Structures are given as structure tokens and as C-alpha cells.
């Protein structure tokens, strides 16, 4: 009997220790969640405060009783946020589309076709993966300038059309498609191109979607190259637009309008993410580092 009592005590202690641990765990996780969410909350909150009330608050308030959409109107009228937005969409769509058109055949060639020099070509190609963008930006800047392509979409888009990494990712995926399918297609007299479009692309759709999503995120947030290549606000992308707004836009003090602009350019990607949550996270864990 005494022994049994002992066990009850031990079990109760273990259970309460576990409860305490779980509670502490949730508290810590919540703290980090708040750290992540707070900037977003602050951004939305500030964007709906009126200019006057924002600047009147020496101690910032955590809520507002008189939300206004005036700042959003300002964001689109005082500075050309609409144009930056449109530019970014054009840039993102064209770059992503062109890139897919370039990398799919390349990945197909490496994965399935046999041609003289393939081994060397692939080795060279792999070694390019190690080259940081910073190293080639300099010459590209000079090249584009010399071609008089500054402040054009062509100049913006051309250097980001290929990605060694995505070709590699896609090639790996193509190679997982059983060889028998290719042989069967050859026996049926299917051409390589038809095999690519009818068999490989449909089968690899999940990977292709992943690559598209990653590229769209990359394009939407790109800053360095557009900054170098555009100094005409008509060609600014959202990142440059934000920087421009910050330096010269609404007057440095109109922070609510600035925040409205920030909200507007943040929303599309967040919506995209919430819709494709699983795909985005799976894609990023397979091959995305920020920066």
C-alpha cells in the first residue's frame, strides 16, 4: 500500500512538471509570435491614424478610435505608388515567365538528353552556383549602361532571367521521373519536345509551381539591381519606391502615409503566402535562402 502511494506521488509530480513545461513552452512561443506580428500590427495601425493625430501623440497609442483611409488615398496620389506597383507586376510576370521558358529546356537537356560535352557543361554549370550575385552585378551594371538600357524594362529584366539554382532543382526533379517513361515515349515515336511538354512538365508541376512562387517572392522584393539600373521614378519597383518615399516622398514626417504605402506593397505577397502556405513553405525548405 505504501509503495502504491509513492507511485501516485511520483506520477502526480511528473504530470504537473509536464503541465508547467507545456505552459512555459506556449508562453515562449507566444512571445516570439508577438515579436513577429507586432511590426505588422504597428504598420497597419499607423497607416490608419490621421497625420495630425499621429504627430500629436508624443506617447504613441496602441489603438486608434478614429481610423482614416486618407493615408491610402495619399499613398496613391501624392507619390506614384500605383505606377511602382504596376512596374513591379510587369517586372515580376515577365521575368518569371521568361525564366521558366529558359530553365525548363535547360533542365530537360541536362536530365534526359545525351549530347557531346554534357559532362563538362554540367560541371561548369554547377561551379557557377557558387558565384555570388554581388560579383557579377558590377559588370552587368556597366554592360546595361553601355547598351543604353538603363531605365528600361529590358535592362531591369535581362540579368535575372536565368537561375543556375532553379535549373539544378528542376533537373533533379526531372531525373526522378522513371526512365521507362522516356523509353516508352521513344518507342511510340514521341519527339523529345513533345515528351517534355506532354509528360515531364505535367508530372513536375508541383516543382514548377514551387519555383514560380519562389521567383515571384524574389522579384517582388528585389531592390539592389533595380536601384542601380533605374533613376527615373517611372521605372521604380516597389522596393525603390519605398526608399524613394522615405527619402523624398511625403516629406519625411508623414509617417502614416508612408505606412499606408508599406501596407499596400506588403499585402500581395502575404495573401499569396496564405493561399499557397503549404507550397511556399515546402518550396522554401527545399531551396530558398533569403538574400
Amino acid at each position, binding site marked *: 500500500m505504501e509503495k502504491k502511494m509513492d507511485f501516485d506521488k511520483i506520477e502526480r509530480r511528473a504530470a504537473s512538471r509536464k503541465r508547467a513545461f*507545456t505552459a512555459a*513552452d*506556449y508562453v*515562449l*512561443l507566444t512571445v516570439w*509570435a508577438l*515579436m*513577429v*506580428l507586432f*511590426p*505588422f500590427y504597428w504598420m497597419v495601425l499607423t497607416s490608419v491614424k490621421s497625420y495630425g493625430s499621429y504627430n500629436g501623440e508624443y506617447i*504613441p497609442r496602441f489603438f486608434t478610435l478614429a481610423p482614416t483611409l486618407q493615408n491610402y488615398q495619399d499613398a496613391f496620389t501624392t507619390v506614384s505608388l500605383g505606377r511602382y506597383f504596376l512596374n513591379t507586376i510587369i517586372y515580376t510576370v515577365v521575368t518569371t515567365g521568361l525564366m521558366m521558358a529558359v*530553365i525548363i*529546356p*535547360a533542365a530537360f*537537356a541536362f536530365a534526359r*538528353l545525351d*549530347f*557531346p560535352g*554534357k559532362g563538362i557543361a554540367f560541371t561548369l554549370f554547377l561551379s557557377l552556383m557558387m558565384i*555570388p550575385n*554581388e*560579383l*557579377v*552585378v*558590377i*559588370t*552587368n*551594371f*556597366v*554592360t546595361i549602361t553601355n547598351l543604353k538600357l538603363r531605365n528600361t524594362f529590358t535592362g531591369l529584366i*535581362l*540579368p535575372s532571367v536565368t537561375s*543556375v539554382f532553379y535549373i539544378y532543382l528542376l533537373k533533379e526533379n526531372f531525373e526522378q521521373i522513371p526512365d521507362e517513361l522516356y523509353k516508352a515515349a521513344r518507342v511510340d515515336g514521341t519527339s523529345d519536345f513533345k515528351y517534355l511538354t506532354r509528360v515531364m512538365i505535367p508530372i513536375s508541376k508541383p516543382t514548377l509551381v514551387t519555383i514560380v512562387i519562389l521567383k515571384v*517572392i524574389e522579384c517582388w*522584393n528585389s*531592390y*539592389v539591381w533595380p*536601384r542601380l539600373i533605374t533613376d527615373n521614378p517611372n521605372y521604380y519597383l*516597389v*522596393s525603390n519606391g*519605398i*526608399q524613394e518615399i*522615405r*527619402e523624398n516622398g511625403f516629406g519625411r*514626417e508623414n*509617417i502614416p502615409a508612408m*505606412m499606408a504605402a*508599406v501596407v499596400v*506593397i*506588403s499585402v500581395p505577397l*502575404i495573401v499569396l*503566402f*496564405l493561399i499557397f502556405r503549404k507550397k511556399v*513553405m515546402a518550396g522554401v*525548405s527545399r531551396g*530558398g*535562402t*533569403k*538574400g
Partner: protein
Amino acid sequence: MKKRSMKGWLYLLPAMLFLGAFMVYPLIDVLIYSFEEGYNSASQTYFGVGLYNYSRVLHDHYFLQAVQNTFLLVIITVPLSTLIALGISLGLNAIKPLRNLFQTVYFLPYVTNTLAVGLVFMILFKKTAYTDGLINLMIQWFGGQSVDFIDGPYWAKMFVLCFYTIWVVMPFKILILTSALASVNPEYYSAAKMDGTKSFRIFYKITLPMISPMIFYLVITGFIGAFKAYSDAIALFGTDLNAAGMNTIVGYVYDMLYGSSGGYPSYASAAALILFAIVLTITCINLMISKKSVHY
């Protein structure tokens, strides 16, 4: 029988053209630039060939400042963010309800524009004539002295930069570590329980070695990413990073190339190659260490 033909090259052609023009050629070119002394971008002439560009860059006060900033940033943020991410992932791994929600929230910074959210951080930390800013108010609540994190002392600016950098890199690390933890076969934990292994020992002897390849992957990519820091700093301190004393090596490269201090592609090239050498060295060291300590 596979037919060997030149058709493969045809499929490769577009990629080859783009890579040749915007990667291979620039790579060679940047090397040449870096050795051409006194290059003038207007007339496209130079005086001679030598190491002057490198020596000039290495003696540039701004470059040294940028190197210092970058190294500080790397040394502070890489270990710290990896550790915090490990803690959070372990926490996530231990719960069931709300786990998806937390994961989704934690991932948000990945999909936001660095420049845009940087602005929010700026207004949170900045001290102006109208307001001390939220963070400073909080410091005051706890009885501290308010300080301007954006235009104030060096350590304060470095603090914000590190804080924001960690905030930005966290989603990727949490994502990788949570999936690494989830992929550890539960039989190992049962086996450890059979032997009465204490939870710290389980973590230290089983969990950690099992996920060590992923931790090293994160450290290596973390180093590379942090060495290339730039847009975080721009977002917080504006485009004139030299004036703020918060320039990074990449920032220095771009400043040399373009903008008010620009027009010196030779210096930019030399600086970029120095950065590349640093990153390459550190990555090699990392790989050597990981070979020794990752067991399978």
C-alpha cells in the same frame, strides 16, 4: 539506344546565352577591372595593371568601417539566430494544438519586403522631435535612458541592425529546424526512454547529432547570407550608409559603383573580390569543421 546528337545544346542555348552574358563574362570582367589601375568609366581607359585598387580599397576608411560592421553583424546574428531558432523549433515540436498557426505566423517575415518592414522598424526605434518612439518609451517605462537607435550611438545602431537581421532570417531557420526535428524517427526516443535517458541527455546525445547536418547547413548559409547584408541596413538607415557609419561590404561595393560616391567600378570590383575571398574562406572553414563533427 540513346541517340547522341547536338540537339541537347539547342535546348541549352537560351540558358547558355544568358549565363554567358550575365554571369561568365562579368566574372572574368570583374577580375580584369580589379587589376586595371585608374580606370575611367567615361573614356574607358586605364593607366596600368596592378594591385593598386586592392590597396586603395584596403586603406579606405569607409571600407574598413564596412568590414567591421559586417563582421560584427555576422558574429552576432548567425549564432544568435540559429540558437533562438533551435529553441523555438524545439518548442514547436513539443506541442500539438496551435502548432500550424504558430508556424504560419513565424514564417511571415520571409514573404515581406525587407525594405518595407525595415521602415516600420525604423519608426519603432527612431527618436524624433515629436516622439521618442515606441521602443524608447518602453525603455523609459523600465527606468532606462532613451536613445536614438537610428541616428544615435554606434552600439545602438548596431543593435537595431542585428535585431532586424535576426527578425528577417528567423523564418527560414525555424522552418528548416522544425522539419529536421520532425523527421527524427520516434523509435530513437522510445529506445532512449527504455534506457531511462534523461531529457537533456536525449537532446544532447540523440536529437542534436541527428539534426546536426541541418544545423551546419543553416550556419553555412547563415554566414554567407549575413556577409552579404545590405538591404536591411538600407531600410533602417537610408541610402547614405557611409554617413550613418553603418555601411556593409556589399553596400560599399554598390556605393563605389553608383550614386553620389560612385563611378569607380575598379574599386567596386576589388572590394567585391575581397568579399568573395572572405566568404569562400569562411565557408571552407565551416565545411571542414562540419566534416569533423557531423557524424553521418
